[in-house]
């Protein structure tokens, strides 16, 4: 299994012009080391755009922005599948070729390896002094004794007339083969995961719950082999969400810890258990993982309409506008309000402070002095019944916005409201009350049947590559000459590792030349 063997590339011309000859030549070329090298390069090179161009799976909003800002470029990117490099056909082509090449490499090598495993070390050469490592000493060491001592050093040993031949370091090839096989295993595990796994996101407000069904997700990305019924039927409720912040020093305002107190039912009839969900400690239910990936504020509002009836009451999750201060933008819609629907745009300030110019801002991300500022209030048809899906973070699409009647806007924006305070709308249109503050969290829920196999193969790969690179294959020969001279010779079969062997060889010679009592 020398490199030369692997490098042997026969040109089809020599073998004749038949189809089989061409196929054989193609296979040889594909499985040659040089091709593997080039494919490795292509794989690395092909990954580069994956980090420079925004990827749909990772940053869909950036892709959308690029489409707005530079549609021609975006289209060209799309033409070459640069928004999804790692699932593109050309990337797949490279790694499939590489792995075909790898299989073409592994199979014959495994066969050679199995043959090697059973093969005995070769007979000792005549002149040991010509070997890269050689020594001689006087002594009464017999062939049998030399063989015994070498076996004790875990060599595989054969003996002959006046000579001993020993070899060890077979784990090197074992490691190499297992490493390359493990790479295949990792690829298969990843493939299985993307076919049979799913991933989804959901936002949960304090006090609310989530049941693991497709309909409950805000975003749901199933693998092609996942059916909606196969989702693990657990449910959870968010009882309390806490964030602690650094309150002093340079890092003031940095989050120190997030923790979500959950009540979990592993299955519909199962008893409820408590779980504290944190970053780095996901909840696991039968292989389905639940991760805490985001959080924010959800102030509670009460809208009373022009007729004095409560048209809306509840928590409204707000989008974070400024992460360091957690200033957030909220939208309240009251489609049930009479005589006309009401809509509000608000800004939530967790730690509200007045600025010198009369405006207000948040000074800290924690809710030390939570206040809500009314940015705009509108009446009119919000267009919710048009059947078109609408975002909860947007009051209405621009064309609908134009038709709404502004009640409060711009210069007549009032002072922010503290919890419990309310504001009366002009013209007796109604009243908005800021009731209190809750928090929301976003969860990622993922099921990936490939993750454990991938881990196992990865662990095999690490151990195997360490064996493959650290162990050297080495041979030691002993010749007992008449008159009591013992010659020892040694060589390594691994290029570039001769240096370290010199020490080991010296130790081996020491063990061989030592008297009986010195042998361990």
């Amino acid at each position: 299994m020398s490199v030369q063997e692997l490098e042997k590339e026969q040109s089809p011309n020599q073998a004749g012009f038949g189809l089989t000859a061409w196929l054989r030549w193609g296979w040889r070329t594909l499985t040659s080391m040089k091709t593997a090298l080039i494919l490795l390069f292509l794989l690395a090179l092909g990954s580069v755009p994956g980090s420079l161009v925004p990827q749909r799976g990772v940053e869909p909003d950036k892709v959308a922005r690029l489409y707005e800002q530079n549609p021609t470029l975006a289209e060209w990117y799309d033409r070459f599948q640069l928004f999804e490099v790692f699932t593109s056909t050309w990337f797949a082509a490279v790694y499939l070729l590489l792995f075909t090449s790898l299989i073409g490499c592994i199979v014959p090598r495994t066969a050679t390896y199995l043959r090697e495993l059973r093969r005995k070390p070769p007979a000792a050469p005549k002149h040991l002094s010509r070997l890269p490592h050689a020594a001689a000493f006087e002594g009464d060491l017999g062939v049998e004794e030399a063989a015994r001592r070498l076996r004790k050093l875990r060599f595989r040993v054969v003996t002959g007339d006046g000579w001993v031949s020993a070899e060890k370091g077979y784990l090197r090839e074992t490691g190499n083969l297992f490493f390359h096989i493990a790479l295949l295993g990792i690829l298969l595990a990843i493939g299985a995961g993307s076919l049979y796994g799913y991933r989804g996101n959901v936002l949960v407000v304090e006090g609310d719950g989530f049941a693991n069904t497709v309909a409950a997700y805000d975003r749901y990305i199933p693998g092609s082999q996942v059916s909606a019924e196969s989702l693990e039927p657990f449910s959870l409720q968010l009882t309390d969400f806490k964030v602690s912040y650094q309150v002093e020093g340079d890092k003031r305002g940095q989050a120190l810890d997030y923790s979500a107190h959950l009540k979990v039912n592993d299955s519909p009839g199962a008893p409820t258990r408590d779980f504290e969900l944190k970053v780095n400690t996901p909840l696991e239910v039968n292989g389905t993982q639940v991760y805490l990936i985001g959080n924010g504020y959800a102030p509670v509002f009460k809208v009373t309409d022009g007729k004095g009836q409560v048209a809306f009451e509840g928590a409204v999750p707000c989008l974070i506008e400024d992460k360091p201060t957690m200033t957030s933008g909220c939208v309240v819609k009251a489609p049930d309000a009479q005589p006309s629907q009401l809509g509000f745009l608000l800004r939530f300030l967790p730690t509200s402070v007045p600025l010198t110019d009369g405006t207000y801002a948040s000074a800290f991300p924690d809710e030390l002095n939570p206040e809500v500022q009314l940015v705009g209030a509108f009446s009119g048809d919000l267009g919710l019944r048009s059947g078109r899906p609408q975002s909860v973070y947007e009051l209405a699409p621009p064309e609908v916005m134009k038709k709404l009647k502004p009640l409060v806007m711009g210069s007549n924006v009032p002072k922010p409201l503290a919890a419990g305070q309310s504001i009366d709308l002009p013209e007796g249109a109604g009243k908005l009350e800021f009731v209190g503050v809750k928090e929301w969290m976003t969860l990622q829920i993922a099921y990936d049947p490939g993750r454990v196999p991938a881990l196992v193969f990865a662990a095999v790969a690490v151990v195997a590559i360490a064996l493959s690179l650290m162990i050297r294959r080495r041979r030691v020969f002993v010749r007992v000459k008449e008159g009591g001279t013992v010659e020892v010779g040694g060589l390594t079969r691994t290029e570039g590792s001769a240096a370290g062997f010199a020490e080991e060889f010296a130790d081996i010679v020491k063990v061989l030349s030592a008297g009986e009592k010195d042998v361990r």
Partner: protein
Amino acid sequence: MSAEQLAGLSDLFVVAAVLLYVVSMVGFAMELAFGRFRPGKAAALGADAQRQAVKQPVAVGAAGSGGEGADASSAEQPGASEAAGQPRGAIRAGTVALALAWLGWAANLAAIVTRGLAVERWPWGNMYEFVVAICFAAVSAFLGTQLRHNVRFLGAFVMVTAALGLGLAVKFFYTAAGPVVPALNSYWIAIHVTAAIISSGLLTMAGVAGILYLIRGDGLSRLPTREDLERVAHRAIVFAFPLWTFAVIAGALWADRAWGRYWGWDPKEVWSFITWVAYAAYLHARVTAGWRGRAATIVQLVAFACLLFNLIGVNIFISGLHSYADVGN
């Protein structure tokens, strides 16, 4: 001592380490400058003579005390057999430089330890701390190798790299001591980042040897032979590659706990992958006919460039999930 005092002490230790590395670099440079020229090929010694040099100490060791057996290895080691031929002044400069390098190493270590005590966590939670640790790892790799094999010729270049790295960290990446974001608050930082730091340190040493390989022609030079340089680089990579593989996998395990997927093609993940593939390409190039030597060294340096870009470039130019990106925050 209060946390602020410890943090201040840590900053002082970094400055001390930079100064010591610079002075040490001068010493190593003098050793090279006043040293003897070496022929371009080890083969100039004559294959027979070389084999003789290997064999004799073993024979002596076998017959006598045995203690000199280890000499056999140094005879094969880069430069060692020639050390005797060096002018005395050069050797002295090199010895002083080595002592200074150890002092700088100690200062670098002290900087990391005091920082860790000041912030009460593993002291590699941001770019600044990460680069300080990598410089420490690179110097450790050099000094550790130097304990067993004579690689003093690398000294000047490793020192200048470490001094520049620390300088860069202080000047551009400095972050006041403080807590990390919750995602970094995990025992995985000890496993994943430590492995990344150690392998980066080793790969930095290999990169330095690779650059010297290209600078040095095949002719007469004060630098060691190309074979020696390549051997140093290869051995460092052979150690570092499994460790880097492990670091990437530990990162995937951590991502599995923190972000809900073990691999998601975050820019840092992409570049770790590219770096890993590039070093795998180097290892394959070494065993491919016609690629050994210069071509393999170029592959190695491309891989090293990927590593550097991943450590520094990705944090600065590309935003991603990795929280290290808060440079100078």
